[in-house]
């Protein structure tokens, strides 16, 4: 792994292969939790932690894992890691656990973690694997934050509601009322809002990518559009 490839890892994780809007992995927690910015970022941070460490451990153990049984071993490693993080957070950083605690068990069912273990960590050295896990997790966090923001503004007319649960009652003043006297738009908060919002995000990303490729290579624009579709 050469130095230049870190740039690619970062670009892949954050944009090109974004877990939420390109790879479309781990949709179950993504759709369930993205009702507000604070919830979305909460799940995102927990995922970043788990993915960085699970990729690191899988990479560390990769020479001892026979190909035939690699999947059960990865699942074992991830389950052990998530449980250890869950227990340790509960015991030693209780305030953080009260905020992120409900998200941590959700990560076990997030196939991004298994996906990156198989696709990246099983073939690469420890440090690049950790960077990859961190970046893919961060990409997911960005998607969650944007989707959470969209749903929260549309559904409740606010931003950052619930932040007081993370930073104490004084943080209540950080809540931004985007639309005063808003009566709420329930569809955005309920599960259909998550699917519609995610669809809009995917469309938005494809549009940006197409516009970029159209600018760089005007001649091949139509070809890129076909590929993106």
């Amino acid at each position, binding site marked *: 792994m050469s130095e230049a490839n870190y740039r690619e890892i970062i670009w892949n994780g954050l944009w090109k292969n974004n877990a939420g809007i390109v790879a479309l992995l781990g949709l179950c927690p993504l759709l369930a939790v993205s009702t507000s910015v604070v919830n979305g970022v909460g799940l995102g941070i927990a995922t970043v932690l788990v993915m960085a460490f699970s990729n690191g451990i899988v990479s560390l153990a990769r020479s001892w*894992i*026979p190909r035939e049984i690699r999947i059960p071993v990865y699942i074992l490693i991830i389950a052990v890691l998530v449980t250890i993080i869950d227990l340790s957070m509960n*015991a030693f950083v209780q305030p953080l656990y009260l905020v992120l605690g409900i998200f941590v068990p959700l990560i076990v069912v997030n196939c991004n973690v298994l996906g990156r273990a198989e696709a990246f960590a099983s073939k690469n050295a420890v440090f690049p694997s950790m960077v990859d896990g961190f970046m893919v997790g961060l990409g997911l966090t960005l998607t969650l934050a944007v989707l959470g923001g969209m749903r929260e503004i549309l559904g409740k007319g606010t931003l950052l509601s619930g932040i007081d649960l993370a930073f104490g009652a004084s943080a209540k003043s950080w809540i931004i009322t985007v639309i005063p006297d808003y009566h*709420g738009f329930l569809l955005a908060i309920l599960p259909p809002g998550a699917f519609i919002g995610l669809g809009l995000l995917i469309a938005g990303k494809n549009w940006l990518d197409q516009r970029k490729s159209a600018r760089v290579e005007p001649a091949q624009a139509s070809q890129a559009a076909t590929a993106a579709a």
Partner: protein
Amino acid sequence: MSIYTRHSTKLAMVLAAFALVGTSMLAVTFEATRDNIAASEKKAKLALIAQILPPALYDNDIIRDAADLPAVPELGTAEPTLAYRALKDGKPVAVVLEAIAPDGYAGKIKLLIAIKSNGEISGVRVVTHKETPGLGDYIEIAKSNWIKVFDGTSLEKYPSNEWKVKKDGGQFDYMTGATITPRAVVKAVHKVLVWYSANHEKLFSLAGTGATT
């Protein structure tokens, strides 16, 4: 044939080794965190109880002195719950009961209710619910102060037919658009009060689950 058998045996042993290492790591973590987790869970429970029953009112270890309560249909509970008994100088001052309103808009609403010895409600909190976000979730203290309408109420204060939301001719406020949720909570709280008035002496004679007092 034997080469495959040998290979399979090797794979099984590798998998077993990973399982063994993983299990031991979990066991070590569990042991290392157990006391801390128990302490923080107790703290969280005490903090929740403190919201509905001022700690100055009692002087016993309310968690240790909790009594096992079998499932009670009047409380809506289908499984044994805990009854937290508050004592001052050995005399009963209040009890904190877990109850379930079975008929919320989206299923069960779990409540924690503190009742003083004179039958007056000290406070009610919703512990878990699945009511519609932004509509029925105002029963949560994090969303609104609605749940405090019960503070200081009792069976003496309102006769049984007034334990309803105002829309149904009762005493309790509700928010337009979500009547089913508060209706369920009011009904459940009323049922708990009725059950308590018939059983409060029995509650304090139950043995505690913790160390003997």
